[in-house]
Structures are given as C-alpha cells and as structure tokens.
C-alpha cells in the first residue's frame, strides 16, 4: 500500500491553503475522501477550557491509510470522535470543517450525521470488551448495526451478520453469533467490533488504538485482518495509536500530534527515514529494536504531556524538548513545509539544517545531550538538572509544563 504514488494521500499540513478548499468544494475525483480543516474542539470544565484539538488539518484519500500518532492526551481520539459527531453530546465547542466527500460534518444536524455514522464512516475502539454491550448476543449487536442503515428483514440482517463474522475470520460464525461478548476471547471481540464496523460497507474506518488492549500476537492478527479487509473492500482507514510499530505496519501517511496539534506530517517513509520534529525523534528513540542491541539505551521523552487547559507558552513542546532555546517559549511555531521536501510539514523553530544534523547524530546512537553538543547548541533554559539526567528521569521537566 505504501508504494502508491506519494502525492495521492499527501497530507495538507498548513491550514491556510486556498487551493485545497476550492478542491474540496467542487467535488472532483481528486478530492480527498475526508478533509479536516483547522478543526478545534474545546470542552468547558470547572478547571477551565480544555483545548483538546487546536487547529488540526489533515486529509485521507480513498483506500489509503493515515496514522495519527501521539501520547495519551494529545487530542488524537477527540479529533476522530468529533469526525463522527460523538463529542457533541459531551458539550464540546467545535469549530473548523470536516469535509467528508465534500459535505461539512460539523455543520450537519444530528439526524443527518446519524445517517453517515456507522454507515459511511465506522469506528472501532480500544477495548473491545467494554465497547460491546455485555447483555446482548454478538449476533444481535451486529444485526442492530445492519438494521440501523439498511431496510432489511430480520432474517436477512441475521444472514448478513453471520456473513460479516465469517469475513473477519471467526470460525463457525452462525454458532458464535449466539454467544455473548464475555464468551469471546479478546482478539475475537475486536474481530466482532470490526465486523460490526463493516456492517454497512463504510468508506472510512476510524480505528482508535485497535490493538492496544490485545496480546502482541493477536495485535499482529488484527492488523493483518484490517489490511486484508482494506484490500478487499477498498475503504480508507484512519488509525490512531501511540505505537509507531503499528503505524509502520499500516499507514501510508503519518500525522504526529502533540498537545492538540499536528507537529509533523508526511508519508510514512519520510517520517521513518528523516523525521523532523524533536518529539517524533523522541517517539522513535523510545522504541526498542532487536537490531539495536542491548548497549543502545532507550531514550524516553522526559516529562509528561502538558495540561490542555494551561498549555505551555510558545512551542508547546519546549518544556520537554532537549533542544529548546530561550525564544522557543515565546514563539508559537506553525506547521510549515520542510525546505526541499515537498510533502513533509513540521512545526519546529529549529533551523532545518540544524535539525538534519541533530537527527544524524541521534541516528548514530547519540543521546540528545551528545547530539546537542555535537551541533553546538546551548542547553535548554529549563533544563536545570545535570546533562544526561533529563533524558532518563521522567517528570523532571513536568514542572515546566505550565507557564
């Protein structure tokens, strides 16, 4: 899938793209299936306004896969729940546009949105046990999904339900349809969730951490199943995960989210071969590899994700960034194309040449501190701890998350 032409599923990073909007409005064949433009989702809480999604723009073409990567609390789940209108009932304040085949889902009424939900756009969730109703048989829940959008007899809907269970690889589907969710294994439950999502042949499947709650061996099976179904049914997939391994397996394009924003976006090859954002570097350096050997220490990203109520000033990542400079706490970086890389956008205040050299050092196995010294960058102002300690001690930079 990843060898498809790189421009086809290219992610538009920069919000003000007048041509892009025209494209979406006219409804031509080159129009992406889903185009999210400057989406903002805010929740009013007793503690203040939570800026869960803060001006996110991305697009997914038909039959392609977009991976949205980020830590918990980066806004990746909220942005996709909003696509289905599922944050409306929680009193979210939503602005921006979500164009699905040219229709703005943000502007649709609840009734109009419901005809799309579970029909043209389907979603699966992290924990399949809690996502299935414990009191209804799996078959009944599938029949309900089919009948929500198709005018079929109960018997036909039931046939379809059994067919769907077979499609996702559940053995003896007509008998297993009679089981309750607690009688299924974890992997089978997620298969049943996928079957339910496929009930009405969706054009887009949103998978929110679909493998996080599963055993590693089962994870691979579920990913393989999703790839097979995508090949057979031709749907587009948005896969939300904190696991770069999952993205490497599945995604054509990647959007890295941090504190409610996309900080880097490009094709999967570009992100893995030449990542541009220090946060992406941190994610990549914290994955264990078999080839790396034991002497290559994993480098965790220090600190915790920032509060989305009182976000850090300037670049939101600066309190945790080993390369932050004094002015980074004042200037808010925008997502911009990387020079000489046409389809690679990043929101970082470091010079692109400097970034290239830093990644070179990191790739050779340097720690962030060594890389910083090698390129002659002064230590970040917030790093009051000894050099080297910041990388391994989590939480030390957390005090700097609020301005």
């Amino acid at each position: 899938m990843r060898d498809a032409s790189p421009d086809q599923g290219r992610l538009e990073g920069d919000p003000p793209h007048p041509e892009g909007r025209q494209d979406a409005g006219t409804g031509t064949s080159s129009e992406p299936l889903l185009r999210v433009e400057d989406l903002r989702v805010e929740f009013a809480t007793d503690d203040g306004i939570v800026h869960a999604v803060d001006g996110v723009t991305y697009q997914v073409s038909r039959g392609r896969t977009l991976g949205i990567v980020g830590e918990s609390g980066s806004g990746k789940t909220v942005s996709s729940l909003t696509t289905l209108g599922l944050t409306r009932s929680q009193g979210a304040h939503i602005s921006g546009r979500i164009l699905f085949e040219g229709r703005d889902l943000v502007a649709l009424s609840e009734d109009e949105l419901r005809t799309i939900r579970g029909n043209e756009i389907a979603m699966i969730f992290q924990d399949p046990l809690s996502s299935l109703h414990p009191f209804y048989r799996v078959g009944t829940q599938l029949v309900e999904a089919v009948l929500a959008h198709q005018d079929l007899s109960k018997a036909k809907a039931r046939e379809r339900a059994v067919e769907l269970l077979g499609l996702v690889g559940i053995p003896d589907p007509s008998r297993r349809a009679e089981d309750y969710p607690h009688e299924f294994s974890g992997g089978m439950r997620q298969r049943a969730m996928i079957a339910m999502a496929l009930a009405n042949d969706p054009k887009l499947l949103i998978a929110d951490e679909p493998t996080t709650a599963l055993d590693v061996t089962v994870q691979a099976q579920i990913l393989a199943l999703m790839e097979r179904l995508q090949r057979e049914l031709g749907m587009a997939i948005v896969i939300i995960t904190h696991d770069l391994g999952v993205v490497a397996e599945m995604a054509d394009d990647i959007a890295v989210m941090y504190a409610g924003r996309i900080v880097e976006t490009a094709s999967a090859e570009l992100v893995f071969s030449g990542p541009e954002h220090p946060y992406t570097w941190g994610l990549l350096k914290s994955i264990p590899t078999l080839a790396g050997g034991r002497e290559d220490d994993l480098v965790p990203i220090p600190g915790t994700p920032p509060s989305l109520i009182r976000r850090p000033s300037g670049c939101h990542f600066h309190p945790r960034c080993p390369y932050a400079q004094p002015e980074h706490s004042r200037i808010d970086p925008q997502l911009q194309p990387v020079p000489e890389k046409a389809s690679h956008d990043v929101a970082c205040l470091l010079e692109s040449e400097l970034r290239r050299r830093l990644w070179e050092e990191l790739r050779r196995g340097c720690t962030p501190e060594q890389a910083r010294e090698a390129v002659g960058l002064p230590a970040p102002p917030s790093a009051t701890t000894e050099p080297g300690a910041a990388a391994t001690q989590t939480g030390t930079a957390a005090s700097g998350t609020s301005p």
Partner: protein
Amino acid sequence: MTRYIIRRLLWGVLLLIVVSALTFVLFRILPTADPAKLRAGRLQNPKIIAEIRHNLGLDKSLLTQFWLYMKGIFLHFDLGYSYYSSASVKSLIFDRLPATISLSVGAAVVWLLVGIPTGIISAVKQRSLLDRAAMGTALVFVSAPVYWLGLISLYVFASDIGLLHIFPGSNSYVGLTADPVKWFTSLLLPWFVLAATFAAIYARVLRGSLIESMDEDYIRTARAKGLSERRVVVRHGVRSAINPIATLLALDIGVLLGGAVLTETVFNIPGIGRLNYDALTHADFPIVQGTVLLAALFIIVANIVVDIAYAYLDPRVRYS
C-alpha cells in the same frame, strides 16, 4: 440453575423455622399481657385462668409448644387459632391477603410508571431545570413518612373529610370481586400515598445508575453505529441500568406483601398489616406468629426471585 433454586428453597425453609422459633421465644419472654387472663374476662379466678391456659396449650413447656406448632404447620399446614376470635389463623390470613396484594401490587405499578420515566428523563437531561425539579420533589417524598403523607392526603383529597372531595377516603375499601370499580377508586389514594416514597427512591436510583451506564464504552459504540439517541438510551443505557431497579422491586414487593402496616392502618384497609397490628394490641400470639412467618416467607421468596432475575437480566451471571 434448577439445583441452585432447590438449594435456595431448602435454605429458605430452614430460615423460616428459625424465624418461627425466634418469634415464639420473643413473645413469651417479653413482658406482655397474659393471653389467658385477657380471655378470662371480668369473672376471672385462678381456676378459670388455669383452665383457659390448658385449653390454649400454654401450660405445656415452651419446647413442646413449639414442637406442636411446627408439627401442625408441616403436617396439616395448620397455623393455629386466634386467642381472641378463635378463628383459624390460616383463614384469617387468606381473607386479608387480597387487600394487601391489591394495595402492594397496585402501588408498585404506580411507582414504576412514575419513577422509571422520571429517572430516565432526569439522567438524560442531567442538571437541567427539569432534573433539579424532579430530584427536589423526590427528596421531599423520600423524606416524608407514609403515615404523615397518608393523613395529609386524606385531609386534602378524601371525599368525606377532605377539602377537595376527590377520592374515597379512609375505610372505603371494597374487595375486587365485590365491586371492581369501587375497589379501584377506593385504592387510588392509598396507591399514590404508598407509591410516593418508592417512586422517589426508584427515580433517584435509576437516575444514578443510568448516568453511570451512559458513560460506558458500549454507549459510545451504540452511538457510533448511528442509532437514534432514543434507542441508545432505552435499548443500551436503560437495559444495563435497570438491574438495581429489578432488585429493589422484588424486595420491596416482598416486604409490602408481608403487610403495609402504616398505609393499611391509616386508610383502614383490612390487609395483613392491619391484621398484624390488631393482633399485637390483643396479644394474639398465633396471628402474630402467622403474619411474621408469612412476611419472612415473602422476603425469602423475593430474594430468590432477585437472584433468578439477575441470571436472566445479566448473561454473565451463572449459578452453579
């Protein structure tokens, strides 16, 4: 499942024997009027009292009395005879049972019809004016003692002494078979009064339970399927929030069938509660014994019903 129920029923029988023994001992140890003296009337002398005591079997040892009582129940389903009226306790109870069943079941229908929709609306429109008004009212009814509510409602609504003359008042109960229309109208006020507190409790319990279940992941799944919000709430939310209501319902009806003493007394309905109350004032042990046994039986059966209902409502629950 069948074996489980049989086991529970056997335990229930044992429990009933224990309850009987306790009542037996309690009423003979606690200081009360001597039933023999009560029956002797004005011409009492020790000889007559001794004779009455002998006739009632009160001169035998406590253990022998209990043994005879148990034997009567197990062999002939004989609950003894009233000291006061000499009528058989069994027939007295069966005479009074229809009134209590009418009152309890009818009230249960009322409180379910009021409590469940109120709870659902309050949960769905959480923190709205409607929710606050409903929960405020519920708090008033939860706190109001049933006899106070009964007297106030008679004072306002009863056709004889009330201000508005809407409903038949106290002492108007007619059996269902005698006159169905009168039976219905005479019970309206008692139903509302008895149901008020229960409706308030049920609304509050269901509201809490539904708010919790609407937060579950499977509700998000139901919405993501594109179901209507009504279907999401009723088929998915209420379906899992209803379990505590089913439990309460079985136990509450079980308790009320043993006699809604206060309501029956206020409205002068000839039910089990009223029978028990009168028996207590007359130191009529056999009737007290019989009604206590009946109440215990209903509560035990209600508990078994709850357990069976649980297995039926929640497929994850299996008894072995």
